[in-house]
C-alpha cells in the first residue's frame, strides 16, 4: 500500500508572496499529484472596470498586478487609443518602451531573487533585490512611484523625461548592468544552483506549445515566440531578437530571464539614446465604439486584452488573459514526479503572478 501525504501548499505559505494553493499528494517526497486552487486574489476587477468611467480604468488596470503594472496600463491605453484612433506621439511611445523594459528589469530581478530564495540561497536573493532597488529608484524619479507608476495615460504619457534625467538614466542603466553582471555567473555557473535546477521541471518543446505556455517559460523550451516581435510601439525599430534556450528545465528558464534582463537594459539604453523630441501627450475627445484585441509581452509573457465598448462612458466588456493563466497548465504538467523540495523551484520558475491571473 503506498502511503501518501496530502499537503495543502498555500495559500498562506512563506515561499509564495501570493496566495496560491496547490494540494500536493506526496509519496515519500515524490509529488504524485498537484491540484491547484485559485481565487484567493480574485477581486472582480474586470466587472469593476465595467462600472467605471473608462479613463479611471487606467488606474484599475495598473493595479491588476503591481509588478507588471506599467505593462497593463500601456496595453489598456493602447486599446483605448485604438478605439479612439489616437496617434500617440513617438516620444511617448519611446518613453513607454523605456518604462516597460524598466519594469521588465525590475520584475525579472525580483523573480531572480525569489527564485534564489526558492532554492534556499538567501544571500543571492538579497543581492538581486539590492540591484533591483536601483531600477525602482529610476522608476520613482521618472514615474513618481516605486512600483505603481501611473505614468501612462490615454494619448501618451503623464511624465516626461528631461535631458538631465535622460543622461542620468543612461549612466544608471550602466550601473545596473555592472552590478547585475556580477550576479550573472552565479545563476549560470554555480554548482549548487545547477544541482537544484538542471533537469528539474522539464517542459518539452511539444508540451510547451500544446499546453499553451507563454513568455520565458515557452522560450526556455526552445520556442522562438515573443509578442514584442509583433513590433508594437517602437520595438519594430529596435531590431529585437528574443532570448531562446533549448532545455526547458528550471535552469533554462532562469537563464532566459537572466539574459532578458541584460537585453532589456540594452533596449533601455538604446531607446534613451534615440529618444525623439516632441510632445508626450495628445488630447482626445469622443466616445468609444467597437472592440479591440491586443497582445503585448509582459515580463511574464504574452498578455491579451480585449475591450468592447458601444458609445458609452463605460466599457461593455473588459477581459484580460494574463501570462500566468496560460502557464498554469504547463506547471501542472511539470509538477508530478518531482521532489517536494522542487515544488517551490518549479512553481516559481513560471514566475506565477496570481493577482494577474485572478484579477
Amino acid at each position, binding site marked *: 500500500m503506498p502511503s501518501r*501525504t496530502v499537503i*495543502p501548499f498555500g495559500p498562506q505559505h512563506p515561499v509564495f508572496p501570493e496566495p496560491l*494553493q496547490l494540494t500536493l499528494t506526496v509519496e*515519500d517526497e515524490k509529488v504524485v499529484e498537484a491540484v491547484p486552487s485559485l481565487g484567493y486574489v480574485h477581486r472582480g476587477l474586470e466587472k469593476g472596470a465595467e462600472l467605471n468611467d473608462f479613463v479611471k480604468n487606467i488606474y484599475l488596470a495598473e493595479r491588476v498586478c503591481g509588478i507588471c503594472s506599467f505593462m497593463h496600463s500601456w496595453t489598456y491605453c493602447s486599446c483605448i487609443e485604438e478605439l479612439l484612433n489616437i496617434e500617440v506621439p513617438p516620444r511617448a511611445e519611446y518613453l513607454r518602451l523605456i518604462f516597460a523594459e524598466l519594469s521588465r528589469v525590475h520584475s525579472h530581478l525580483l523573480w531572480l531573487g525569489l527564485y534564489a530564495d526558492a532554492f534556499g540561497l538567501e544571500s543571492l536573493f538579497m543581492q538581486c533585490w539590492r540591484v533591483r532597488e536601483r531600477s525602482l529608484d529610476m522608476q520613482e524619479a521618472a514615474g513618481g512611484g516605486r512600483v505603481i507608476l501611473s505614468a501612462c495615460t490615454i494619448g501618451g504619457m503623464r511624465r516626461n523625461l528631461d535631458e538631465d534625467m535622460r543622461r542620468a538614466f543612461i549612466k544608471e542603466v550602466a550601473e545596473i548592468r555592472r552590478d547585475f553582471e556580477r550576479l550573472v555567473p552565479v545563476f549560470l555557473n554555480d554548482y549548487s544552483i545547477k544541482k537544484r535546477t538542471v533537469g528539474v521541471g522539464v517542459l518539452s518543446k511539444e508540451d510547451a506549445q500544446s499546453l499553451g505556455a507563454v513568455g520565458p517559460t515557452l522560450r526556455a523550451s526552445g520556442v522562438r515566440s515573443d509578442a514584442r516581435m509583433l513590433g508594437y510601439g517602437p520595438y519594430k525599430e529596435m531590431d529585437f531578437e528574443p532570448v531562446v534556450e533549448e532545455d526547458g528545465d528550471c535552469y533554462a528558464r532562469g537563464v532566459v530571464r537572466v539574459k532578458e534582463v541584460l537585453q532589456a537594459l540594452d533596449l533601455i539604453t538604446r531607446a534613451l539614446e534615440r529618444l525623439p523630441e516632441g510632445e508626450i501627450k495628445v488630447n482626445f475627445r469622443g466616445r468609444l465604439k467597437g472592440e479591440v484585441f491586443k497582445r503585448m509581452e509582459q515580463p511574464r509573457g504574452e498578455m491579451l486584452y480585449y475591450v468592447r465598448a458601444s458609445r458609452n462612458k463605460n466599457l461593455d466588456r473588459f477581459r484580460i488573459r494574463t501570462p500566468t493563466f496560460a502557464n498554469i497548465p504547463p506547471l501542472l504538467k511539470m509538477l508530478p514526479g518531482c521532489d517536494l523540495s522542487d515544488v517551490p523551484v518549479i512553481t516559481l520558475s513560471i514566475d506565477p503572478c496570481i493577482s494577474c491571473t485572478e484579477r
Partner: protein
Amino acid sequence: MTWNQFLLVALALPLVVALLNYLVRLPQIRKGSIIVMALALIASAVWLHTRVGDNAVVLSFPWADLTILILDLAILAYITYVGIERRHPYIIALAVLQLAGLLYIELGLRPDVSEVPSLVIDRLSVVMYLVVAVIGSIICVYALQYMEEHDDRAHPEERKGRFFLWFVLFLGIMNGLIFANNLFWLYFFWEATTLCSFQLIGHDDTRESRDNALLALFLNSIGGLAMIAAIFLLVNTFGGAAASLSAVVNSGLAVLSTSFLIALAFLVIGGFTKAAQLPFQNWLLGAMVAPTPVSALLHSSTMVKAGVYLILRLAPAYSGLPLSTAIAIFGGFTFLAASLLAVADDNAKRVLAYSTVANLGLIVACCGINTSLAVNAAVLLIVFHAVCKALLFMGVGVIEHNVGSRNIENMEGLAARMPAMMLVVSIGVFGMFLPPFGVLFAKWAAMEASIREPLLVALLVAGSTLTALFWTKWLGRMLSTYPREEEEVQPVSMPGYYVTSLGTLALGLVLLSLGLPAVVNGLVLPSTMTWYPPAIQGMSGLNLAAFSWANYYNPEIILGNAVVPEGLFPLGLLFIGLLLMLVIPMAFFEPEKERVGDIYLSGENLDEGPLPLYFAGAMESPSKVSLGGYYFRGVLNDRTVLSLNIVAAALMVMMIGVVAS
C-alpha cells in the same frame, strides 16, 4: 530439588502440559495448567540461577540415546512426508539426505558416544534458560488471552488445543536445546524446533501461512543438513568422543585440522539458518503470518536465539582464526542489510522481524569479533533483545487486534486510542536503540569491541544509524495525533492477561536496564568466564573491568585524567537524564493554563468535519490531510533485497573458502 527433578520441570513439564492441552480442550484447564507451568518454569529458572556456579553441571543419560535417535528419524521421516505431500522436491531432497547421513553415521560409523555427556549446564545455559523460561512463560500467559481473540474459523477449541500443544512443546524443546551437549541430542532438539515452528507458522491454515511454513521448513532443513554434515565430519575424523559440544569448543583442534574447521563452519552455517541471517531471512519474515505469540516466541527466546546460541557457544573454537573475521563481517553485513530493509517496510511485524535479523547479525558479529568484551556484549544482547522483542511483538499483537491491521500507517494516532499500549511500546522501542537501555549498552560495547576490524566498524556504524531511522519513524507514526484527539477518543481497555504480561516485561526492561551493572556482574560476566577461555586467558583484565565497574557513573574517574581503554558508559548520568526527562515536563507543564492549538494548514483549516484535519482544497471542497510515512521505495525495493541476498550468499561462500584454504 535435584537435577532430575529440575529436568522434569524444564523438559517434561512442558511436554505434559502440551499433551494435556491437546487432549483436554477445556479453557479452565488450559489456563490453569499453563499458568502453573509458567510459574514452575520461572521458579526453576531462579533455582537454576542460584544453583549453578562456575563449574558446569554435567549430566549423562546414555539410556536415552536410542530414544533420541528414533525420535530424530521420526522427525526426518515426517519432514520427508510433508515434502512429498506438498510436492516440494527440495525439502524431500534435504530430508532424505539428512536421513541418509544420520543412518550412515549411526550404522556405518557406529560412533561410541557413551563417554559424551548428554547435557551440560553451565552459566551460559543458565542465562539462556532464564531467557527462555521467564520470557517464554510470560508469552504463554499472553497467548492465553491472545488466542481467545484470535480468529479460528472452525473448531476453535480443537485448534487452540493444537496450538498450545506445539507452543508449549516448543518451550520444552528449547530448554533441551540449550542444555544439550551430545551433538546427536543437539541435532534432535534442533530438528524438533524446526518441526514446532513449521507447525506453528502454518497454524492459521491459510494458503499464505502454509506456504510460509513450508518455506521455514525448507530453509531450516538446510541448517539441519549442515549440522548433519558437521557431525559426520567430526565423527568420521575424530571418532565418537568428538560428538560433544564442549569437546568441540575446547578441543583447540582448529589450528590443526581442516576437516574440523569445515565442520565448524557447517555448524555456524546451521546457526545462520536458524538465526535467519541473510540470505536465509525469508523464513523469519514469512513466519510473521503466524499468530503473534508465535512471532514473539520465535524472536525473543526460542528458535532464532538457538541459532546465535550455537554460534556463540562455538566462539572459543574459532577464536583467532580467519573464520572468526569472516563471521564478524558476515554478521555486520546482516546487521546493515536488515536495518536497511526494515526502513523500507510498512508492516509492523516485518519491521520487527528485520530488526530481529539485524540484532542477530550484531550478535553474530560480536561472536566473530571474539574478544571478551564482544562476547559479553553478545550475551547481553541476547538477554535484552529477548525482553524488548517479546514486549514489542506482544504489543503489536494487541494493537493488531484492536486496529485490525499490522500496517504501520494504520497505527497512526495510537497514542490517543491506546495510551497504555503506547507507553509499553515506547518503552520497548526506546529499549531497542536509546540510552540508557540495555540493548544500546550492548551495542555500545559491541561497537567499542569492533574497533579491531575497521570494515566491520563501517558496517556497524551504518546499521546503527539506520536503526534509529526506522524505530523513530514508526514510533512517530503512533505518536501523531490531531489536536484534542485524546479528549474525543475513548481509550481501549486492556484485559488482565495483557496488563500482566506486558506490564511485567516493560517494568522488567526498565529495571534490568537500571540494574545493568547487576545484570552484567551477576549474569553476563560469570556466563562468559566459565566457558570462554579467552575471557580468562587473553584478557588484560582492564577490558572486563571497564565493562563492569564503569557502568556506574564514577565522577572521580571521569573528571580526572584517568584513561580506560574501552571507554565508559555513564549509566548513572544517563538515568538521571531519563528521570529528569520524566520529571521536568511534569513540573513545568500546566496544560490547563495553555491553549490547544489547531494545526497549521496554510490558513485553510475548515471547522467542518469530524476532525480538525480538513482544509479547503480545490473548488472549496474539504480535503483531508493525510500523512504518509517515508519508505524510500524508490531506492529500497525488491532489487535491493535481491542484491543484498546475493552479497550475503557470496560472503558465506567466501567464509567457507576462507576455511578451506
